């Protein structure tokens, strides 16, 4: 069904292999509630309504150049209008036309990978996303792909086995003229099968060049406005016109305001379609990350330059969250425990802020004022973050300490950037999260180290100096004593990691 570009008050997305045009949808409605309450598709479950359990996992298919990209997301905190231009795939869509189970589903059955079954649709969808994007996933990749899915019954072993078996089952099936969904992703457009080509064309037919804008009624008859601009100029001017608007990118934090706090988001400006903000650029001097670039999208490029930060990003929330959440969003919301901040500050990252046509650059470390307060003005947008590339010899590490390795919020997060001349410290930037109301450098610690020999003795002095830098608090994640001690010990770990004695310090990387 061809759709005209002027059809602006409705959103268009693909579901069940058909383009749906939906008008008048409440912009605060989550995809999960839309599926369950409006469409009565109850296969997708609500486990937590905050993106931490994965029972609500669905897959989005979208165009990425001439490819179709599949990514798992948490439907419980994704708003329906953000589906515009995409295909939504739910657990109900996986069976073949003849009712046969998809290889992912069959593998789950064969491996006894469901017990109570409530988390199962979410696992199936996370595995489906993995299936469509990767052929022979390692155990580590399977763990990563499933880091956002909680199962309380199985102990995960049979699910891991299913992930290892699904491609074999798929290969057996694909000999028999299987449905295209049963094939792992074919990367080149030429090798697309009929069904795949149709899916691609359907997606092409609903792409949008202009700003999507619509108004609907929301809770108890209130008025709601939703804008999805496509250019940064339009985006900035909308934000300037609506200084009270909520800027929505991945929605992994904003979604919770609605699901947990029952907040009304009267005006939403969605940045996900803004082409300039979607850009991820590499120059000789910088990595530049636009405000709509997701954490997963930056992962590879950052990994090439700062492997330690890439490892931290691997442990940042979960794939469904990183598939939606943006690096800039992690910065812009001003949380004291954003995991990327210590690393970015210690690397000397800066932000490009835009208000209308005016832009200004601020150093990231100057962006945070106090708890959840930043220098960002009303009507202003964080357009991009600029991460310098350090070509001169240096040591850089970032560490995250949490109760659980995967998908947890850090008790303490730290990053260290060090330049030495022989053994003398020329430059040190030590930055911490979780020990103050904002992510912060440790001036006393840095000063203790500046110009000294990089050795055990000076590190011990600098560890003590951290007491002057931070007065952490106790909460459910950790006590202040633990935070203080870990902050110090992470500096020691950094020292050991830069020392050639090769003492092992990482439990995660340890292999027997």
């Amino acid at each position: 069904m061809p759709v005209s570009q002027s059809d602006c008050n409705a959103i268009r997305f693909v579901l069940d292999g058909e383009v749906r045009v939906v008008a008048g949808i409440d912009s605060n409605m989550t995809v999960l509630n839309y599926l369950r309450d409006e469409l009565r598709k109850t296969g997708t479950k609500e486990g937590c309504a905050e993106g931490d359990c994965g029972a609500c996992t669905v897959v989005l298919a979208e165009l990425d150049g001439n490819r179709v990209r599949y990514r798992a997301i948490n439907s419980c905190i994704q708003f329906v209008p953000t589906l515009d231009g995409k295909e939504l795939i739910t657990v109900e869509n996986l069976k073949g036309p003849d009712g046969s189970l998809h290889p992912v589903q069959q593998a789950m059955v064969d491996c006894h990978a469901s017990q109570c079954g409530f988390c199962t649709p979410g696992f199936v969808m996370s595995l489906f996303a993995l299936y469509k994007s990767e052929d022979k996933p390692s155990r580590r990749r399977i763990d990563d792909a499933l880091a956002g899915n909680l199962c309380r019954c199985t102990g995960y072993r049979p699910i891991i086995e299913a992930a290892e078996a699904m491609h074999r089952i798929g290969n057996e099936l694909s000999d028999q003229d299987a449905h295209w969904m049963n094939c792992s992703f074919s990367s080149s457009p030429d090798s697309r099968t009929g069904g795949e080509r149709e899916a691609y064309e359907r997606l092409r037919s609903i792409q949008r060049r202009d700003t999507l804008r619509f108004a609907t009624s929301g809770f108890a008859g209130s008025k709601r406005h939703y804008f999805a601009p496509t250019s940064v100029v339009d985006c900035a001017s909308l934000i300037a016109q609506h200084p009270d608007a909520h800027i929505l990118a991945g929605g992994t934090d904003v979604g919770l305001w609605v699901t947990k706090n029952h907040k009304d988001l009267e005006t939403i400006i969605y940045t996900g379609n803004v082409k300039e903000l979607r850009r991820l650029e590499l120059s000789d001097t910088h990595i530049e990350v636009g405000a709509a670039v997701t954490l997963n999208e930056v992962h590879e490029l950052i990994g090439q330059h700062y492997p330690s930060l890439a490892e931290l990003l691997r442990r940042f929330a979960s794939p469904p969250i990183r598939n939606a959440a943006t690096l800039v969003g992690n910065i812009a919301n001003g949380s004291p425990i954003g995991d990327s901040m210590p690393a970015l500050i210690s690397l000397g990252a800066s932000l490009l802020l835009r208000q209308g046509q005016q832009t200004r650059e601020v150093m990231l470390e100057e962006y945070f004022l106090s708890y959840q307060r930043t220098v960002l003005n009303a009507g202003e947008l964080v357009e991009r973050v600029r991460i310098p590339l350090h070509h001169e010899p240096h040591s850089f590490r970032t560490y995250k300490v949490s109760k659980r390795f995967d998908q947890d919020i850090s008790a303490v997060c730290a990053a260290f950037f060090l330049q030495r001349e022989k053994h003398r410290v020329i430059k040190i930037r030590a930055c911490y999260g979780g020990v103050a109301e904002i992510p912060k450098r440790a001036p006393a610690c840095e000063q203790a180290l500046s110009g000294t020999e990089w050795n055990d003795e000076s590190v011990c002095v600098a560890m003590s100096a951290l007491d002057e830098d931070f007065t952490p608090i106790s909460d459910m994640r950790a006590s202040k004593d633990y935070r203080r001690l870990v902050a110090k010990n992470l500096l020691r770990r950094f020292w050991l990691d830069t020392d050639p004695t090769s003492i092992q310090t990482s439990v995660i990387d340890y292999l027997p």
Partner: protein
Amino acid sequence: MSGGNLVGGVGTPRVHESAHLHVSGEALYTDDIPEPRGMLFAAIGMSERAHARIRSMDLRPVRSAPGVVHVISAADVTGINDYGPVVADDPIFANSLVEYAGQSIFAVAAKTIEYARRAAKLAVIDYEDLPPNLDAQSALSEQSFVLPTETMARGDSAEAIASAPHKLRGRFTLGGQDQFYLEGQIALAVPNEDGAMLVYSSTQHPGEVQHAVAHALGRRRSSDITIQCRRMGGAFGGKESQPSLFACIAALLADQTGCAVKLRPNRDDDMILTGKRHDFIADYDVGFDDTGRIRGYQVTLASRCGMSADLSGAINDRAMFHSDNCYFLENVLIRSHRCKTNTVSSTAFRGFGGPQGMLVIEHVVDEISRHLGRDPLDVRSRNFYGIGERDITPYNMKVEDNIIEEIVPALEKSARYRERRRMIESFNAASPVLKRGLALTPVKFGISFTATHLNQAGALIHIYTDGSVYLNHGGTEMGQGLFTKVAQVVAEELQIDIDRIKSTESDTSRVPNASATAASSGSDLNGKAAQAAAHTLKQRLTGFAAEHFGVEPEQVVFRNNQVLIGTETVSFQELVKLAYFARVSLSATGFYRTPKVGYDRETWTGRPFYYFCYGAAVAEVIIDTLTGENKLLRIDILHDCGESLNPAIDRGQVEGGFLQGMGWLTTEELFWDENGLLKTFAPSTYKIPVCSDWPDEVHVELLETGRNTENTIHRSKAVGEPPLMLAFSVFFAIKDAIASIAGYRLSPRLDAPATPEEILMSVQELGLRVKQHSGTTV
């Protein structure tokens, strides 16, 4: 009786009966049931204070909020304002006194869930704060208990300790645990004619919900109320007594509005409103000889029971009954305080107090071995129950089925325990930051409800004229595979393929007075009851066949979908049809009561358990002494499931139970703030294990020679709870890794859960003690 080619008979690794529905999203949970016309949504108004008198409450803003249809509080409860399962101290709605932060005070029915939840936040309540007891220690100091203190004793433990060559005294604390079932609590109440009500409830105990709803509605007949549950999305004990609150509120609102009402709290409210595993404080005195054999043991257990009794009596009883684990305690005194705190009432959770009692004695044995400088495994073995001697439990039950001496040496060997211990010691000597640790821990767990009368079950089987079978029993399906196992039992008994059998939802109108599906007893009880029903039908068919074909009943043999009748063979279906035309009843109930059990709670002697389950595990961990971060590297498990009804399902229970136990003892930490507000009420703050926590190297074996010495269903053993305690090995392996920093000469102080913080603080404290021992270097 071999099944031949029978599909899905006993002992086969049949997949879960709903697996194909789970993976396709087609399995219906209570929230997925098509909603009745005009259904309303409910939400609960909760206390903001831990302990306070309500001076006044203004519900007008709630009533006048958009979409609100009906609001009720304590005064509006038609019948009895209580849902306590044992003691009537659990008000559905707090009257004038709130006793924990989050307690239900009123409820709203509205046109949408969003209207209901928003309105529930609008009450204006004036509280007069009262001093709260926020933990067991505080309640203990004030002698504030929900139930009387109990004592179990044998011999002269004081004298035995006093005269022992070695003595230790100490305190060990262990944390609680949230069940974190993925499907939250939910009830959908649908009014019917003439005062009847159907409630769909996610519950392990439909029968109890039935009575609670009947009492709340003031019905004179519980038979007016029907409770149904096809499946739960996990329960783990958290849906044993807790669902009544939600069912009662939904039913009250439905009864008063005449509309169907659904009540589904969100995750936060669910975790705040519902009970968790009891945390414990244990103070012990132990005397032992040079070999580590215990001469006398005294322990005082104090548990956080929360604001009401709930199931705390039986839970703390079970903690007492399991204070021995696998160890013979000749002179023993076990005291148990059931502390009343201003926190949510603690409730059932897999193991039901058993894990807590067992963890304490494991801690004590570990302390003994470190005190003596012996390998903990040697001290454990030294204290095992004997066979034919040293085999009487502190409650005077003879341990008749002891196989721990079979399991532990086999596992020690297959896991190469001694060799790896040496390797680990040399690794640790060369690794200043990362330290590895190893531990082997045993499990013995008693099977049966300690409340003897609960050890009964019923089943109902119909055979239709096409030979298909309808199966119903009093057990509930929460993922554990009960429906699959019971269907296998029926398939075996009737000798028909399992796909001829339809497993159907738990329903109080089909099988009455069923006990909770709990205490690991589901398959034992319901399997036997269903077998009895199937047997009755088989006998009727046999009698009919003998008469019809003119043979002796012994000449009628059911085998693999066929019935051999003398020299003739007919299909099961043909025989059923013939029987129908001959007017033979094709419907039967079955009943089972566990034999032999019973004990005297006055003297704490007798036989509370029909039999024991055994298992053991070896865990190897690595810890980071700079941060306390840790990882399980390898796990070896040998567990006894008797003659397993379904080895695939049993393995799932073993592995799942193990990881759940590991969560309890490592990452899962409950945190209440100084005002008594639970701050770990969502997966963002409460951390259960994830996929990467499952170790790379795993060896899980079910004991091949396993066979229940008692006449249980096909000589299988219960499997729901016992494997949880296999995770003790992880906790003590962590402790072992910490001990390495003091050259294994001092015992680390480690309480549960061993979070990274607990571990690091233990490392710090031990480091200080090492420094105090002059001349000792790390």
